[in-house]
């Protein structure tokens, strides 16, 4: 009896395995598949759903315009769970099991690195869409987010002059992006006659900044470079405000929803990015209208991080159509030749480093916690 039961359980187990396995085989010839992996759960999940929205909107627009190579584009969504292992598993699911032709990732750098070997082995196109520290390269990999040099080099001289910001203090999370940003910021500040009066790096998930703020008080800077991200950035700015510190703030990686959550402390904060919700252009108004139509009034507002998959998906579609087929080599050749004009302005990849040239804007947070654009720097090359 026991044996029969044991064998039955084993059969069920095998059955489940085989069933799981079966689902992978079917591929529909009438569609071209692409995948988006975003943080739908875990620490990065404030931005994930917006990224999926942006991708869905882009795919819908492409299909409405005749699709790619006359076929419909199908979007597959994966959750990275803000975790490297899971992200890699999902990359495998999308590229190897579902045989997607391109993968778009809107997640942190660690999750990108985790799936590198999967992506390389698959020999498919890969687009990393959010702001990141720069410096990566791959034959089939493209990076469409802001890199520190784009946010710093044109912007810092302007801020130092306009706001008389000589003494800077850096507060960042202890990881590669913040370290890289600091490095470039130091060059820019010191090159323009300023000085860095202190820098502090905190672990991810820090919620009490009181000792850091004491250090800032004793260093007495003009401006603080806010390189903490996510929930930590919110806690930091709130606590800064409650301690009565009124310093200039400059941020690179704080989305507009986070600004709302910071409250009064964020008023006056400057931020450099390629896109803001309040960008006063026809293209952006059109985009927001379509976005609201598709996802409703209550949907998350697009911001420069979460909306980042939108442009590269369009660029990929244009390049495939340009190449006339899905051969990676030919699409690679076509990619630098196309330019897409979307809500933020013109975006294009350079053929050498596979990074995007983006328009850069300086925004300032007003009393209503909305960002107004105070300066445009035009298209900045990576």
């Amino acid at each position, binding site marked *: 009896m026991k044996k029969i039961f044991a064998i039955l359980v*084993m059969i069920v187990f095998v059955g489940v395995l085989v069933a*799981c396995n079966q689902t992978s085989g079917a591929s529909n010839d009438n569609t071209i598949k692409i995948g988006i992996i975003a943080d739908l759960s875990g620490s990065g999940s404030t931005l994930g759903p917006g990224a999926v929205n942006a991708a869905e909107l882009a795919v819908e627009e492409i299909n409405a315009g005749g699709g790619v190579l006359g076929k419909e584009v199908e979007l597959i969504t994966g959750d990275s769970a803000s975790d490297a292992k899971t992200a890699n598993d999902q990359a495998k699911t999308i590229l*190897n099991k579902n045989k997607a032709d391109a993968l778009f990732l809107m997640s942190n750098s660690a999750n990108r*690195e985790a799936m590198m070997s999967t992506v390389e082995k698959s020999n498919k196109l890969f687009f990393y869409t959010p702001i990141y520290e720069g410096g990566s390269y791959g034959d089939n990999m493209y990076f469409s987010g802001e890199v520190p040099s784009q946010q710093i080099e044109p912007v810092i001289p302007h801020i130092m002059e306009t706001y008389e910001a000589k003494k800077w203090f850096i507060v960042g999370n202890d990881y590669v992006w913040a370290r890289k940003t600091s490095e470039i910021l130091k060059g820019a500040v010191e090159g323009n006659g300023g000085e860095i009066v202190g820098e502090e790096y905190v672990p991810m998930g820090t919620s009490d900044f009181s000792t850091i703020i004491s250090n800032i008080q004793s260093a007495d800077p003009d401006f603080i470079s806010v390189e903490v991200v996510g929930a930590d950035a919110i806690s930091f700015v709130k606590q800064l405000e409650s301690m009565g510190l009124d310093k200039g703030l400059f941020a690179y990686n704080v989305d507009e929803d986070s600004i709302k959550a910071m409250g009064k402390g964020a008023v006056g904060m400057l931020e450099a990015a390629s896109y803001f919700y309040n960008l006063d252009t026809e293209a952006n108004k059109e985009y927001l209208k379509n976005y609201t139509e598709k996802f409703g009034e209550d949907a998350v507002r697009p911001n420069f991080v979460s909306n980042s998959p939108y442009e590269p998906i369009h660029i990929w579609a244009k390049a495939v159509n340009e190449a006339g087929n899905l051969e990676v080599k030919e699409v690679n050749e076509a990619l630098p030749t196309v330019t897409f004009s979307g809500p933020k302005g013109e975006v294009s990849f350079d053929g050498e480093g596979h990074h995007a040239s983006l328009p850069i804007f300086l925004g300032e947070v007003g009393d209503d916690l909305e960002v107004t654009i105070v300066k445009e720097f035009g298209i900045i090359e990576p």
Partner: protein
Amino acid sequence: MNLTRSLLKSNPSRNLVLIILILLLLPTVSTDYFSSLVGKAIIFAIFAISLDLAWGYGGILSLGHSVFFGLGAYAFTITSLNIGTPFGIFLGIVLGVFVPIIIAALVSSFVFFSKTSPFYIGVVTLSLALLAEKMVIRFSSFTGGQNGLSGVPEFPFYGVPLYYFILLIFVLVVVVSSILVKSDMGKIIMGVRENEERMQFLGFSTPLVRTMIFCLSGSLAGFAGILYASFDGFVSPSLVGFTLGTQVIVWVAIGGRGNIVGAVIGALLINILSPYFNEYFPYVWQSILGLFFIITVVFFPKGIYSFIDKSRKSAVKYDVTVKPQEVKILNSKSNILNINNLGVSFGKLSILKDLSLKINTGELQCIIGPNGAGKTTLINAITGRNNPTNGTVVIDSSSIEKERPETIVDKGIARTFQSTNIVGNLTVAENLQLATANGKFQSFYQNTKEIHLSPSTDKLLKLSRLEEKMTLLASELAHGDQQLLELCMAIALEPKVLLLDEPTAGLTGLERKEIGKILIHLAHEDNISILVIEHDIDFVKEIADRVTVLYDGTIAADGTVDQITQSDLVKKVYLGGH
């Protein structure tokens, strides 16, 4: 061949063989994607086995086993990336196994060799996982920080396809660990899990046993880490962190701890199914898994494998052989154990005060005295359970007052406890086998079904009728039988000195008489010195050569039974108005 047959015989082994067969055939019927998914799951199954060895078999609660996994992965990655070439890869493999062993040994020396609570190891390993993750992020120049390291070189496969290579290693790990847990050493490991104190007083260095299994487990986890890094091509801080440490516990718990097959099933099931949950329910898949954990833990605490494997510990017959009687040099009436000015105090409370006592060869000496006089404390002080505050204890001209219990057992002192202390989850035969091991490490692969008993132990076994109950679990015995078993185990150690703490409590008059006879025999014929704490004055009168009265931490009287019962002092302090 005997080995293969015995492996195939029991139910769990058959299930394992079945699993391995399925895994072997899998690539022929599945996609590359699925094989790579399963390959990773197999690596995690190895990791789960490593935890099961420590937690399920060794009873070592490791809440941060990911530290060893992650350290193995990082050590391999960093070495092989920096040195490159085949040499770097091999050095990486060596370091990937040895760094975890070193850490496991350090943790062991910190935890097992002192009197800390069993939960402390959990705290240390948990803290270690938190610490390791922070360190990896902090020292990003070596470790790549949050972004991790990619481009990890492949393991040298010698042309074997990756999947099969991993499967081969998995099979090896399963076979070796199955043999280990069934071996004589495996019984010792389980004995330490079940009853550390008894094992100590059977002469085993329990910290050493725990260190051994923990290092073994750590190295296996490290090796799984190497495989993972090489298979995935990427290492990141989450490999050493708390989350993975918790996940592996979940896999083992869901499959069923203390069972190699259970650990394997748990790890395979969850790792194969979760990507599918993620794909089909991207927004709620984690909740589904969470619910699954809760239901398993609450309603099937023994894991899902307990449904498949209902096989009870089978009644294995043991062959009992009796050693030839050893001819002892009779140095009669010389004293073997000398206790001088012994003092024991706990804080301000002093229990024993400058107590001096000699125990003679082949003499049966009873200690009587009112409650709280310090009788049990005296035995504890001699046997190293509580080291004395001052004074000396000398056996055969070596001082033992500062030694650990196992060393003292090795010098020839055995004891029993007031409340019985046996290894409940092992059979009577296995308990005896542990005792006859004399505190030595046993074979890591043989599963001996033989017990080699001393003649006096054999005699006691027959008299107590325990012989008929050899295949029962010790915990299933009646109270009196448990007490007899404990006595058997103490005698099986072939001690020079036997210390018994109320050996007849809870026994009937007839049983007492039998035990009394055996004790007299052991003392007078086998020349063992016996010290018995006893309340029943009639029993004392029957057996004792000499009686010592302990009162208020000192010796109030010492002499023959008659001398003592006539003494006015004794009447006053002990016998009350009788």
